[in-house]
């Protein structure tokens, strides 16, 4: 319990630090915010007035506290490119991102863990070799390229699935699979090596000496022990999904948070870029925290007091 409490505090600290980092990074950017909104022909006075309106000339820390004050009150501001309210943007795109991310996350573990177990149990046989080849190649294929190939093959050539769009099951299949592939490849490897490590552990011998069947020894005890490192890195997997979602959402035209963030960064739409970065960081930090809690649950050695 102490561990969970301290991790929670740590999580809040990280959130605060990241918000400052993000704020500074975006404010200190070399680009000019006014270019995003005003036409190129705008006069210097117009630009100055615009900057004044947004408070862009105040010291950065002042801007930060003003901004955080507004965020805490639930006022997230609006986009400078199209005036859309950011709170609406988050609501609308957040749901889509959640659907995509959650499906990818489920795929990662639903496919990665069983394949890894299979490879470990059949180690040095053809099934193992096949699975490990898949894993190595899966990690080497950049997902944006895979996304293109998938669109080209399944959408353009075969016409089985739509190439882009939202938000039905059919539109979800391609982006979710592409997003999950690298996670699957990594999870397979990790599961395999964790399984092998625990298969060689002394307690396996004890359980066999106790007369348990291999199915129970491996399926219950070895697997449960192997899950400890896998769960501890589940937060990292979520982080990875969040990161790659930026790219995959863009390609598949999946209207999620990532797509909006990339567009905003490219267009220098500060309020949007800033807030969406914060949202994604919050998701990552929270998922790391969740993984930590999960780790405490699967690993009784941490539950001492």
């Amino acid at each position, binding site marked *: 319990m102490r561990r969970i409490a301290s991790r929670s505090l740590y999580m809040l600290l990280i959130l605060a630090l990241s918000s400052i980092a993000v704020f500074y990074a975006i404010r200190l950017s070399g680009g000019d915010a006014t270019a995003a909104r005003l036409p190129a022909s705008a006069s210097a006075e117009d630009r100055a007035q615009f900057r004044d309106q947004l408070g862009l000339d105040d010291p950065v820390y002042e801007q930060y506290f003003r901004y955080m004050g507004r965020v805490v009150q639930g006022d997230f501001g609006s986009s400078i490119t199209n005036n859309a309210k950011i709170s609406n943007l988050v609501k609308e795109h957040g749901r889509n991102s959640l659907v995509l991310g959650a499906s990818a996350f489920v795929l990662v573990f639903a496919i990665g863990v069983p394949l890894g177990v299979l490879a470990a149990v059949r180690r040095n046989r053809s099934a193992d070799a096949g699975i490990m080849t898949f894993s190595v190649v899966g990690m080497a294929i950049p997902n944006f390229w895979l996304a293109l190939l998938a669109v080209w093959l399944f959408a353009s050539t075969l016409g089985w699935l739509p190439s882009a769009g939202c938000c039905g099951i059919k539109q979800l299949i391609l982006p979710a699979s592409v997003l999950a592939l690298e996670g699957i490849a990594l999870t397979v490897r990790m599961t395999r090596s964790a399984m092998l490590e625990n298969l*060689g*552990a*002394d*307690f396996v*011998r*004890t*359980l*066999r*000496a*106790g*007369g*348990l*069947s291999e199915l*129970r020894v491996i399926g219950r*005890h070895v697997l*449960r*022990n192997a899950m*400890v490192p896998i769960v501890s890195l589940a937060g990292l997997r979520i982080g990875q999904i969040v990161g790659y979602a930026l790219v995959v959402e863009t390609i598949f035209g999946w209207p999620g948070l990532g797509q909006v963030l990339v567009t905003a960064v490219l267009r220098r739409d500060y309020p949007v870029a800033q807030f969406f970065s914060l949202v994604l960081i919050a998701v990552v930090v929270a998922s790391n925290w969740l993984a930590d809690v999960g780790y405490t649950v*699967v*690993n*009784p*050695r941490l*539950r*001492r007091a």
Partner: protein
Amino acid sequence: MSATRSSTPGCAVPDRQAPIGPAATGAGPPGLALSICNLRTVIRTEGVDHEVVRGLSLDIQPDEIVCLVGESGCGKTMTALSALRLVPSPPARVVGGEVMLAGRDLLKLSNREMRAVRTEEISMIFQDPLTSLDPVFTVGQMLIEVICTHRPLSKRDATDLAISALGGVGLPAPHQQIDAYPHQLSGGMRQRVMIAMALMLDPSVLIADEPTTALDVTVQAQILDRLLEEQRKRHMAMLLITHDLAIVASIADRVAVMYSGEIVELAPVRELFSNPRHPYTQGLLKALPSARSKGVLYSIPGRVPPPQFPPPGCHFAPRCPYAVSRCWQQYPELTGEGLHQMRCFNPQPFDPS
């Protein structure tokens, strides 16, 4: 000299009928509790098999304690694991021999039959109780799981049995400790759990592989006493693997000295300590620190030959002060009179100084 070969199939170990040790009092049922015969186990490294157990034969009577002693790496643990068919495979595998228990050859049983025999008829206790217990399950979960694979008991009955087994080996507050994880127990407590697990289904044979080596000196005696008490109470046959000769002297009925994967001397404990015949056994005894050996400790010169490069004749010849040319040409068989047997062409009287 009525030399009798013993490492032949069929294992005509002499004087098998002669009552030995406590069995002489007629406490146990007739016949052997465990009979290992001509056991061969190899380990494959880089595509080549090396024998680590080289035709080992050993009988244990009910109610008897046999100690298996020898340097590290001589194959003691592999022998025990082979008997239970628990050798890590790959790279190791049992390639020959018999392990007779209650009229059946364990090496010929199906996997399912073998699983039913483990813990029910023959149990094993391992050296390091921390790594030998599953860290993510409670003690109770493990015991109950083992009970339920062997007995058609309800969860409640299995729990009761587990608690009484834990209480039986002197674990304080067993109905609380049953929910403890291994890391929450001390080393001695963990080893008690291992003992409880090994004994709860009343096996007729127990193999204990250095059960006290990983423990604090202060609890070693407690654990050993507990084991002995249980052994006496159940008239169980026990094979105790150790390299602590003090333990051997105090509890063994018979002692088997192992060297390089085979038994080099086998004798009742008193006989072995008072009249060791094999030069290796003599070396082991001389290496014991005693009041007489002031300051200077004796150690056997040289080291165990690598299994990849076995000597041509007797495996101890390279380290043996009494070796003659025959020792380098011929492989000695286990011979001897009565209960005292050894594998040596040129035994010498023991000079303890």
